[in-house]
């Protein structure tokens, strides 16, 4: 019979921790693109950073959302009192790069936007625009928008042209609101600037997201982004996941002040989800379980999965993994004034992801999965591999990096020499032309940024097709500039040799070979940290 069988019988989730590898430690699962490897780390000098188990989601998400809208944080009135008939309302929301992997329906943005629109309907608001705040990312397709906001909202607004992707290269659609005291132009979406109220719907997947960055970056174009998406700013962001020590965020916060002073009223709604990336049950659940807690069924399933994946062609594997949707659960929702909201959000992100780690090691290893923010429903080309490893995963730290200065980073990914011609056309040119000349981010910025940012063909594809902006591959390269400066050597295991060399890294066929190559730089018997992510985990290195 239909009983109230909620999973209250589950034990409470355990926090993440650092495992010291000894002779009894089983091999560890490394992500390797659309496959997995089991790697044995040397005993006595390796440790593995394990993520926390997923926190329980809120039992009544709709209720929590309504509660947040009616009881905002900081200097803000409840949402219903901000909605008046005849007003201009704009709702901006995070684009396809969040969450990763995409979450199962209903997406949290759908829930929030419907709750907001319900209040707007009640208040008699007619003039509503919904904008995917994608800055210089690619436009979202109809299916992707439907997934994010739901069919009801899509069918109500898209046919009338009221739900659309930001076009940051539209001269009529963008304005400069002013400059920060450092001379940084604040470039902004005109419709959002001229609205009576701008509501931002955010998913704070990692601590880099949210706050003023949502609007100052999400609704901006090249004119504004170049002031903080550059090598100097990113080299002074240690790390980009740690707002208080990030020049990137300092710049965005300055821009947030300019936006406020320009009279743009923002009602920020931020959410956090747990890290239930692979599900507590189902075919991929064993990727969230600690290896020594795998039962016989898990082990059999892993072997079968690996064998099966080895036999499949690349396209089939991409199709399988690309179809995976994570059963993320909402863990918090807060609304109101940007900074007050963001403070609470970050507490919740850290509650799920932060793990204390003592000290640094000589080597950092990581297994890179099949997905990063810029290849949803697409192909992970070598530049994105580099960005995921050196830009994102390397920066999942607070305090200091997990690997010492001059140390070695070893990443595991097939790194295919393959590019998606619709999504990443400028990446092909970057890989073919720029990287053959130089891999130094400062040189690249000086010689090529203007050409890629102003090329008419790339702008045409960004505005009319589903392509990332021409300058985006350079931003990917800058994202890794802090890591490139910090590290002594970068090695990719199991990657396409020509592609890896074009990136300027070293290629190794196995992890053992990579460790041997690394000893040339860090000496014999180096210490190793393995960052076991996804599911997401962030290291608080003390």
């Amino acid at each position: 019979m239909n009983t109230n069988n909620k999973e209250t019988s589950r034990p409470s989730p355990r926090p993440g921790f650092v495992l010291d590898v000894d002779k009894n430690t089983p091999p560890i699962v490394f992500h390797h693109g659309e496959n997995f490897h089991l790697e044995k780390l040397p005993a006595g000098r390796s440790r593995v950073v394990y993520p926390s188990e997923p926190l329980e989601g809120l039992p009544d998400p709709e209720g929590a959302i309504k509660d947040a809208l009616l009881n905002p944080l900081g200097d803000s009135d409840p949402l219903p009192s901000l909605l008046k008939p005849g007003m201009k309302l704009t709702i901006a929301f995070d684009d396809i790069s969040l969450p990763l992997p995409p979450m199962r329906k209903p997406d949290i943005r759908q829930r929030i936007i419907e709750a907001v629109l319900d209040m707007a309907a009640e208040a008699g608001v007619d003039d509503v625009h919904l904008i995917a705040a994608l800055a210089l990312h690619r436009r979202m397709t109809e299916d992707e928008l439907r997934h994010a906001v739901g069919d009801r909202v899509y069918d109500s607004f898209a046919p009338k042209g009221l739900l659309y992707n930001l076009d940051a290269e539209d001269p009529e659609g963008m304005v400069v609101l002013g400059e920060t005291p450092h001379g940084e132009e604040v470039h902004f979406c005109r419709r959002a600037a001229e609205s009576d109220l701008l509501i931002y719907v955010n998913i704070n997947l990692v601590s880099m997201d949210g706050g003023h960055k949502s609007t100052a970056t999400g609704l901006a174009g090249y004119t504004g982004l170049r002031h903080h998406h550059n090598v100097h700013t990113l080299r002074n962001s240690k790390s980009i996941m740690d707002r208080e020590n990030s020049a990137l965020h300092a710049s965005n916060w300055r821009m947030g002040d300019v936006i406020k002073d320009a009279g743009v009223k923002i009602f920020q709604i931020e959410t956090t989800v747990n890290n239930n990336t692979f599900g507590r049950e189902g075919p991929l659940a064993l990727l969230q379980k600690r290896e020594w807690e795998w039962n016989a069924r898990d082990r059999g399933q892993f072997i079968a999965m690996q064998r099966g994946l080895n036999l499949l062609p690349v396209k089939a594997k991409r199709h399988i993994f690309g179809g995976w949707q994570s059963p993320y659960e909402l863990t918090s929702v807060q609304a109101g004034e940007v900074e007050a909201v963001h403070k609470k959000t970050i507490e919740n992100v850290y509650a799920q992801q932060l793990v204390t780690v003592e000290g640094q090691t000589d080597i950092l290893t990581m297994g890179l999965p099949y997905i990063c923010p810029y290849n949803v429903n697409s192909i992970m080309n070598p530049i994105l591999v580099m960005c995921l490893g050196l830009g994102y995963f390397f920066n999942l730290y607070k305090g200091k990096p997990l690997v010492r200065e001059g140390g070695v980073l070893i990443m595991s990914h097939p790194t295919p020499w393959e590019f998606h011609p619709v999504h990443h056309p400028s990446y092909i040119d970057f890989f073919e032309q720029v990287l053959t000349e130089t891999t130094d981010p400062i040189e690249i910025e000086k010689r090529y940024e203007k050409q890629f940012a102003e090329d008419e063909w790339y702008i045409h594809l960004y505005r009319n097709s589903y392509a990332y902006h021409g300058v985006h591959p350079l931003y990917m390269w800058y994202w890794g500039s802090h890591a490139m400066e910090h590290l002594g050597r970068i090695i990719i295991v199991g990657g396409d040799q020509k592609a890896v060399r074009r990136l300027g890294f070293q290629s190794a066929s196995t992890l053992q070979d990579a460790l041997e190559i690394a000893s040339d730089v860090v000496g014999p018997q180096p210490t190793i940290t393995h960052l076991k992510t996804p599911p997401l985990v962030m290291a608080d290195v003390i």
Partner: protein
Amino acid sequence: MKSVYSLATSFKNKFLKLGFPWVSASTPIGVDSKSKNNSLGASYDTEWARRPAARLARAVIVETLMRPVMSFLATPTRKGLDRLENLEGPAIFAANHQSHADTPLLITSIPEPWRHELVIGAAADYFFNTKATSAISALAIGAVPIDRTKVSRQSGDMISELIGEGWSLLIYPEGGRSPDGWGQPFRGGAAYLAIRCGVPVVPIHISGTGKILRKGRNLPRRSKSTVTFGYPMKPENDESARSFSTRIEKEVRSLADETASSWWDARQRSYRNSSPSLTGPEIGAWRRSWALSDNDGKTRKRRRRWPVI
């Protein structure tokens, strides 16, 4: 064929010639007939149809027969299923009623787990008229007898008990199928039961089945249909059945508006209490029919492409 017919007739005649006790005796004239233990209508006992064997048979009928037939006849679109995400336990599903096709359509649309733990409130005087129809209704769709106009004590108790055991109920608050395509006023049965048993009501709007099998027709026609689920509704503290029933009807109206126009427009009109009425304009019959045909003006744009050779 002829020989079979003549064989059957001769068999029947032989049987009748046998007389009592092979055939029931007729009551003599002048004698008061003992009031038959009326086990049809609202007092038909459907408990047998909820035993495991019968439930399995019903599940098989639903999935292997009902689903493909409805898929073919009604090409249904199901919307709003995500609104049932947080629904736990039994519920009362209340829908508007236009044709006999509604019930199989809803049975195949209501998601699991409620689908296989569902009883249908069916008009006692129509479906439970004879032993044969009673048995088929109880088995094939899990029907329980219910009164059209006001929930009687008997059916009310029976249904409350079932809901208490965890069964969900599908009921048509209008009481019967629409005679002309427009809706009829909602009666209070669903609201009353919800309050009594403490379970939520899920409002549902069905559109398109009126064309499939209108009241009065016998042969079905193919037509597109849409089933839209609304958020589960709970009665407010101390709310009366009548007021709750009015709220349910308003919600179904809003769902109808959502299907006909868009969710946003429907929400706006709902808040202004200007959702289009389900019962139609207070005008003459032909104009009511005429106005109905305005609602389905969605033509499909044919995409023109170069032929690929």
